[in-house]
């Protein structure tokens, strides 16, 4: 699969004295669901904000579909290709009504007026909120607000969808709602980059990049990364419960990652 995002020797610092990200090299393929897993302060939010040039690269290179992020003339196109949804549902509402919030991005890119409504409708359908166009943002739950935020980004037809801890302020219902939407989009071929500190959310990913103290501590498939309990603990993270239980029980063999696999595994041993 072609590379969607390629980073070489990526270094980032706000003021030159304190380094947030130190010499990272990585690549994210098109169509992949990548989880960026790290504790607070690991640099994970800063990393993804380099992808759409919200933060300036200090040194190294990042290319999104071959386009260098450092060139200002690329930024408008970059932000159209790389859509981002943030942590606080209420702080990214640009307008009081759903359809206005979604059309904000479309207007920024001078999408002709006659295309705005159909694109809005389609985006809402893709997040399971068909018919919500004229609703007031104030009447929506946290999970619904995040889905509107995703729709606002989808309307621009991005190639990459980045979620910056987008579920951390939601209740369990909102969280599972958003995860279901993401699984649907992933099946349709959207490249997903999900920043989180919960290993449970990373179980679904195709690949996990673990960040700790501004460097990449692990980069591989969930079944490699989430079973390395020591590495996770060293970086302020917890493995998923099934892995924890498996290890605590001292069972041989690879630890299952999901609840279902764990239940199966125990039954098999019985």
């Amino acid at each position, binding site marked *: 699969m072609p590379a969607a995002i390629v980073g070489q020797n990526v270094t980032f610092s706000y003021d030159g004295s304190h380094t947030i990200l130190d010499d990272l090299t990585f690549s994210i393929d098109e169509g992949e669901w990548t989880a960026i897993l790290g504790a607070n302060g690991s640099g994970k939010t800063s990393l993804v904000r380099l992808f759409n040039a*919200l933060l300036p690269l200090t040194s190294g290179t990042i290319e999104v579909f071959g386009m260098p992020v450092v060139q200002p003339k690329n930024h*408008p196109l970059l932000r159209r290709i790389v859509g981002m949804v*943030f942590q606080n549902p209420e702080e990214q509402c640009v307008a009081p009504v759903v359809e206005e919030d979604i059309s904000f991005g479309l*207007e*920024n890119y001078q999408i002709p007026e006659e295309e705005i409504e159909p694109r809005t409708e389609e985006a809402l359908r893709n997040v399971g909120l068909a018919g919500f166009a004229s609703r007031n943002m104030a009447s929506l739950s946290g999970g619904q607000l995040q889905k509107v935020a995703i729709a606002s980004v989808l309307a621009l037809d991005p190639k990459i969808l980045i979620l910056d801890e987008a579920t951390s302020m939601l209740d369990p219902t909102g969280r599972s709602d958003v995860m279901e939407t993401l699984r649907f989009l992933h099946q349709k071929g959207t490249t997903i980059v999900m920043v989180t500190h919960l290993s449970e959310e990373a179980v679904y990913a195709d690949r996990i990049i673990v960040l700790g103290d501004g460097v990449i501590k692990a980069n591989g498939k969930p079944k490699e990364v989430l079973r390395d309990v020591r590495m996770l603990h060293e970086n302020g993270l917890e493995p998923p419960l099934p892995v924890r239980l498996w290890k605590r029980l001292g069972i041989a063999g690879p630890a299952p990652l999901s609840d279902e696999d764990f239940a199966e595994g125990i039954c098999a041993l019985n």
Partner: protein
Amino acid sequence: MTDGIFDARTKLLCFLLFVTAVIEAGTLLPFLVLVVLLFPASRSAGLCAHDFFRPLASLWQFFLLVWLMNAFFSTDARPLWHWWIFNLTEEGTIQGLLVVLRVLLIVEAGAIYTASSSTKESVGAINWTLTPLSLFRVPVGEISLIIGSALQFVPMLQEETERIKKAQKARGAVFGGKNLIKRAKSMIPLLLPVFLRAFSHADALATAMEARGYQSGGRRTKRKHPPFSLCDKLALSGGMILVVFCYLA
């Protein structure tokens, strides 16, 4: 962009025309006409009696002060009463009354306007009205965006203030106090955090806007406005006639 009978732009223009008429009015008759016009206008905007009289109730001290300033500080050869720097004059008394009446009319018209138009409509109308200014390189689009965002911030800030007030009261904060200095100091645990939250919220919003391709000064899709209807044209003509009448009367 039409909510109700009148176009949003018509409502804004009529408001501006009314304000102009208020400024032009000099004698009793035009003022009477203006006051009388407020009643049907407020009715059609859906403003109830309580909201209509609220500006009067909450601003009465301000009005009293304005009237007193005019009544007692005008320079006139024949004061009715004089002591130290205070000069009570007939002219000043009447002037004061007119100033108060003008402010009251404008405030009421403002209340009627905001009750009759949604935020989106208002911002769209302001944007359209300011468009000619873009020829003079005034950043019209940005001004509308700032106004729209500021209006949205108001309910958010109210919520934050409530929330932080409760949190500080929960640890024994008391707001208010005997003297002004004490009162000001007691507000710091409320105002500073709310201030910070406002900045944090603004920063998050700006980041989200940038991430969705907003460029300061950049071109955006031009939304077409439907043509003015007959009702709109009648209202606008009426407004202009009102201004001329107030000027002449």
